[in-house]
Each structure stands twice: as structure tokens, then as C-alpha cells.
């Protein structure tokens, strides 16, 4: 187990190093961040002074080693734009994204898995066909467009929900969350649903495919022969046997939702991390870009780790292998 963890951490470090080099080279290839930020009224001397002040006149490898050295001392640097430590900048926006992503995943799971089970259980029924048609829409319609439709319908035409932004927050476990109040929910429900739509389609199809396959297997027939109720057959034996791919996809989707909810955050003006990173890229705010991507790498590694541990819980055969 310890060996397994160490292996994962080493993997993460390799990815972080590779990724930070790519960002440095990428920004370098685009050009000097100062040229994007500088005021048109600046003269040449001021431009030179600024480039010098931010160390952008030094060779690239030197800039990179200064950065790595600081990072090893726990300092990821300050944003060029805000002059705030990047970690606290990113962290201040993390709760908004976290609650949005979790709400979206919850919607996708609570709706998607039952629908998928049903449409796999009764694949020929009309309702199953309707569900499948819906799932195709879920991942084929672009989310910014769906987002705009949702806003037009529920905020502009019906006036039931706000068109964007985040509701009032209360502090829970050191994080400002808005899902603690009903008003907060009125703000989160549209973006969360919009974000959930793609995952919903994915989970329905995944669950259905697994269910169809498993329903015809021997152990389902045996379970039925034993006289178990249908709900037990499906809810216990089928669900458990199709859960490995579902958990895998769930983990990956959770990670990408947390890291790249950009489109939904933009359309609904949700003050999350996705908007921060896009804004940082457009002004070449390198410290924020690098720090954010490093966090994303760790996030994915962490989620994959949890997924692996859950595998073991779901399927004893995997546990045995990992232990050996």
C-alpha cells in the first residue's frame, strides 16, 4: 500500500515537472507577458524596466530554475496582475467551483444511473428509447448554447431564477459556500444542471451498456432462480458488477469538471477557478497559469487514487492484485 502511494506521488511529480516546462516554453513562444499588459502610453525605458523587474530578461532556463527553487520552498509566486500570492488567489475561488462541480455530479449520478439501469433493464420499452434519445442530446449539444437556452427560459422569460452569478454565502469548514441557503440554490441550480448534462448522457449510456450485458449473464439467471426479487437482482447484483467503469468515468469527470468548468462558469458568470485561469491566460499571467495547472495535476492524481481504492472495495479481485 505504501509503495503504491509512493509510486503515485512520484508519478505526480514527474507530470508536474513536465507540465511546468511546457507552460514556460509555451508562454515564451507566445512572447513577453509585459507586451500584453503594458499601457500604450509607456515609453521604451519603462518597458525595459518592467521586463527587468519581473525577471523576464533572464534566460528562460534561469527563470525556470528560480521558479522551481521557490516552489520547493513552498512559494508558488505572486500573480503579475493582482500581486496576490497565487495559491490564495486560486484557493479563494476553489469553493465556488467545488460546490458547482459536486452539485453537477450529484445531479448526473442521481438521475443518470437509475435512468441507465432502467433503459438497460427494459431496452425495448418506449421509455428506454426516450431516455436514450435524451442522452444523445446530453452530450451532443454544446453546453454554452444549452446554458443560454436555460437562461433565456428560466431567467429571462419565466423570471423564476437568477440569470447568473452566485448567491449569498455562509462559511462552512473555512469555505464560503452558497448551497447552505435556499437563495444560494436558486443561483446554483441552472449552472449545475448545465454542467451535469454531458455527464448525465455519459452515465446513462455507460450504465445501460453494462446493464444490458450483465442482465444476460449466468449469475443474474441464478439470482432469479434463487427467487430474489427483481429490485434486489438489479439493485445489488447488476449494479455492483457494472460499477467499475462507472466509478472510473465518475472520477475522471469529477476531475475535469473541477478543473475545466470554464464554459459554464463564463455563461453563468460563476466566480470559479475556470474563469480565473482563462483570464490569466489572456494576459499571460504565468505564475497563475503554472500554479493552477500544478494543482490540477495533483487533483487528478488524488482522484485517481481514490478511484483505485474504491475499485478494491467494489471488486475483491483487484484488491488481491494490488496487495501482492
Amino acid at each position, binding site marked *: 500500500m505504501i509503495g503504491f502511494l509512493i509510486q503515485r506521488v512520484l508519478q505526480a511529480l514527474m507530470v508536474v515537472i513536465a507540465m511546468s516546462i511546457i507552460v514556460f516554453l509555451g508562454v515564451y513562444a507566445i512572447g513577453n507577458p509585459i507586451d500584453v499588459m503594458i499601457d500604450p*502610453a509607456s515609453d*521604451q*525605458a519603462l518597458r525595459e524596466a518592467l521586463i527587468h523587474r519581473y525577471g523576464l530578461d533572464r534566460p528562460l532556463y534561469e527563470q525556470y530554475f528560480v521558479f522551481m527553487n521557490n516552489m520547493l520552498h513552498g512559494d508558488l509566486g505572486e500573480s503579475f496582475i493582482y500581486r496576490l500570492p497565487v495559491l490564495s488567489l486560486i484557493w479563494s475561488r476553489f469553493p465556488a467551483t467545488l460546490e458547482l462541480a459536486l452539485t453537477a455530479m450529484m445531479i448526473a449520478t442521481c438521475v443518470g444511473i437509475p435512468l441507465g439501469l432502467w433503459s438497460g433493464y427494459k431496452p425495448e420499452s418506449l421509455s428506454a428509447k426516450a431516455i436514450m434519445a435524451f442522452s444523445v442530446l446530453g452530450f451532443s449539444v454544446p453546453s454554452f448554447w444549452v446554458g443560454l437556452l436555460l*437562461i433565456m427560459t428560466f431567467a429571462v422569460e419565466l423570471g423564476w431564477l437568477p*440569470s447568473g452569478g452566485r448567491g449569498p454565502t*455562509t462559511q462552512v469548514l473555512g469555505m464560503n459556500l452558497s448551497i447552505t441557503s435556499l437563495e444560494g440554490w436558486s443561483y446554483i441550480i441552472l449552472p449545475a444542471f448545465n454542467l451535469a448534462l454531458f455527464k448525465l448522457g455519459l452515465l446513462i449510456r455507460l450504465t445501460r451498456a453494462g446493464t444490458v450485458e450483465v442482465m444476460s449473464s449466468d449469475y443474474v439467471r441464478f439470482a432469479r432462480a434463487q427467487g430474489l426479487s427483481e429490485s434486489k437482482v438489479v439493485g445489488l447484483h447488476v449494479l455492483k458488477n457494472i460499477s467499475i467503469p462507472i466509478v472510473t468515468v465518475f472520477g475522471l469527470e469529477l476531475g475535469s469538471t473541477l478543473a475545466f468548468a470554464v464554459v459554464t462558469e*463564463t455563461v453563468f458568470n460563476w466566480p470559479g477557478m475556470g474563469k480565473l485561469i482563462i483570464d490569466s491566460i489572456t494576459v499571460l499571467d504565468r505564475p497563475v497559469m503554472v500554479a493552477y495547472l500544478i494543482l490540477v495535476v495533483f487533483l487528478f492524481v488524488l482522484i485517481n487514487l481514490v478511484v483505485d481504492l474504491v475499485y478494491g472495495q467494489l471488486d475483491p479481485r483487484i484488491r488481491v492484485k494490488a496487495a501482492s
Partner: protein
Amino acid sequence: MKQNFKLGGSLVAALVLGTVLGGSVSAQTLTMGLRAGPDSIDPHWSTLGSQAEALRHIFDTLVMSDENLGLKPGLATSWKPIDETTWEFKIREGVKFHDGSELTAEDVKFSIDRIPVVTGPMSMTIYTKQVAETKVADKYTLHVKTKAPAPTLPNDFIRLFVVSKNVGMEARNEQFNSGKAAIGTGPYKFVSWEPKGDLVLERNDSYWGAKQPWQKVIRKEIPSDPARMAALKSGQVDLVNYVPATDYAAMQKDKSVDTFVADSVYFLNLTPNVKETLPRKVKVDGKEIDANPLRDPKVREAMDLAIDRKTLVRVVLEGLGRPANQLMPSNFFGGNKNLPERPYDLAKAKQLLADAGYPKGFEIDFHCTNNRLPGDGAVCEALSQMWARAGLKVNANALNGTVFFPAQQKGEFSLWMSGWGTLTGEASYTYGSLVHTADPQLGLGAFNKQGYSNPEVDKLLQEGARTMDDTKRRALFEKVTEVSMNDRALIPTVQIQTVWAAKKGAITIPPRVDQETLAYEIKPKS
């Protein structure tokens, strides 16, 4: 969302509060949905336009500007040069900071001294670079010594925000963002802010200027155009800025909104690279040639004549613009009212190209921004089609500003178009940067990447920079405008207009040429 609403008890209370907070126009609260906001609450951190726009509510500037960027008194009631290199500013008496302390010349001096210490990559030192030394003559009089004669100092000082000297030299962005150091003299007091989020302000009842109708102002940052328009239509905000052209067309039929159109300081200008060799060579009959055809004034004139500006405005910008014949509005200081409109004459353009030795035209790469100003990408594509009619093959590349500006700075373009706004309202800002020969020693021509150099223009600009007499200086800059525009050092195309929209009959928004949306100029309609 830093503000923690303590929702006491029942959900009913939460819902009631919800309708109040999310609700529509209440006479006392103004909620604005704006495209961009500040990067910090420190007014000396950045020259970013939206930063100044937001912080004007909290901090006052020494000199203020009206809706056409003409100067008017701010915290200084008057100013005059007392010798060639000294300006005297009389400071308004009886002005109180939000913490109750009184404004004196010391605070102004402190603010000028503070800028070089704290400013960031969009450096505010551009507004203080002419200052050699500041002296407090008496409690309400400040003498500013300049390094050389500096006739435009009052123009620079429309961005000189005055902070209280009590905040101390140590205060940085964090202290300002938390509100601790956000102590100004402005019409509104700071309540809360978070980067890219909402700025919340409340009325300063002891403001020295006009009494404010709004008890509370919420400045929401909504960069996405559709999201901003939806926020207005759903009633979440009372007004929005930068209405896209397509929405503007629809809004004119919509009975529930008012629109307000303003000329802007932003112009889309073409820049032909006139250096000996082009970074991207032009092709004639598919073969690269070494010569730079753009050096020939006939070619530049031909390209100019091939531009149908009226069509650009009517079709590409949906009417939200004006044909341009110089780089800034002609009523700005140094603008030239005598320049004629630029004609559209395709036959003459073809003739000139033939005269210049390119009867079959040539092929050239053309770069421009696509996300900086409304319509920039579309104008770019349209221009290349207009030139095609004159026989030129122009490969238009509309780039994101993030890619465009570094490449432009490195001199990688042969022909480009980008926006320029004359934010100080006078000519030296624009022509000094764009058409003076690039000269790091003088600090002039910093954005002259096209290699244009005309000794006559240089001489006029340098003379203008040290002429204190307004009438004489105005004449010098008018001449600069005339000569450089006739040379086609840059080719102006269109002036952009921008649009605000608000709920029908709720408020009036006085349009400003600098596009600033200022709560204290917005009045409820009674």
C-alpha cells in the same frame, strides 16, 4: 462573495431577503453589470481603464474630466504654471476622507510619491514621469516641479488618484482589497470586493460634491456578452455596458429597454510597415520580392482609397461607428477639423497601384486583433475583401490580443490593424507614441513599430512637448495630425461607438467618450 449574509432562521426570511437582493430597481440601489473591473482596490496599482473607472467612485483625482475628456476641477480647484517647469495646484478646502481626516496638499504629495513605489506592470508612472519633485507650499497649495516644461501635466493628473497619507507607504494590494486602506474622498465608500467579482459601495454622505441618489452601488463584473445581456433582461442588473452590435439592433425594437450610444476614444487604425525590408515579404505573381511596396506613398494611398468606410460602419459595425480621418476625435486637443473625409475611389486606387509598378497587385499578410474592440475581427476580414477589389491579395489573420501584441512588439508584422484610444484627450499621447521616430532616449515613438520617420513631424512633436502656451501648442499638434495623416503613417479606418442599455424609463446614463460607467453621473428618472 466575501460578504457573509447572516440569514437568520427561517427559509422565509431567506426568500424575502432573496427577492430584495436579487430584485429589480429599488430607488436606492444601483446594480451595474459591466464587462470588466479593477485588478486591485489600490488606485496606484494599474493604469487599466476599468480599474480607474471603478476606483473613481472611492477616490477622487486631482483633475477631473468631463464626458468629452475636457479638463475640469477635481480635488484641485485651479492650476497654473508659475514658471517654465513648475505647476501650482490649489487644493480644495474642507474635503474629508472617509475616515474623517481632512485633505491637504500633503496627501496629494504623498500620492504622487507613492506611485513609483507600489505600481504594477501596467505602470502608473506614465502619469508621473514628468514630475521631478513635489513641494507643499502651504496647506492647500502644491508646487509640482517638472523635469522639463510639461504642458500636459494636468491631463496626466486626471488619473492621479489621491489617497490618504495615513495609509502609509507600506500598504499594498492586500490592505486595499480588504478595505483597510481603501480610504478616499470619493462619492462612495468601499464595502467589499473580490477579484473578478462584485464591488460593493455605499454612499459617502459627507461628499464635497453633488449629493448622490444611490444609497448603495453594486458593480458586477460580467465579461461574457450573452451573460451580461441576460442579466439585464432578467432584471438582475439595472444597466449594462458594451452592448454587442447584434443585441443593439434587437434592443431597438424591444420596449423594455433604453439604449444610450456614445462615440468612443477608440479608433481602428491600419499600420503599414515602411521599413527597408518587410518581416513577411510580399509576393508578386506568387514570387517573393525584396522590395517593400508600402514604402511607396502611392501604394499607401491606393490602399486607403480602396477602403469603403461608410460600408464598414453600416454593414460590419451595424451602424455603431463613424468613418475616421485621423487617429482621434477631431475635437480633442490637437485634432484637426480641416482634414477632409477620406474618399472611396476604387478606380483611382487601381490606377495608383499601376503607377507604382504593381498593375497586377501583390499578395501581403495582414494581422489584426479579434477580441480587443467591438468588431475588430470583422473589420479586418472586410478590409481584405475591399482590397481584393483593388487587385490586392491580402491574407487577413485575426488574432487574439494575447498573441498579437507580443508579435507586434517583436516587429513580426508587415501590415496590421489594432485599436488605439486617446485616453488623455490630447494629441501628444497618441501621435508622440505612434508617429514620432522610435527614440528610446526621448521616450517617444514607443509604439512606432512601422519604422515611420519624418523629421518635420519629429520636430513639431518635440516643440509641442515643451510649449506651455495652449494656443501655440494646439496649432503645432494640428500640424502634426495633418502631416502624418497625409503621409499615411497610419491609416485611420473607423471610430467605434459603444452602447449602454438600461431598463426602460428607469435611469439616464450620460454617455462618455472614455466609455466609463460612473454611478455618480447616473440619475434615476423620476
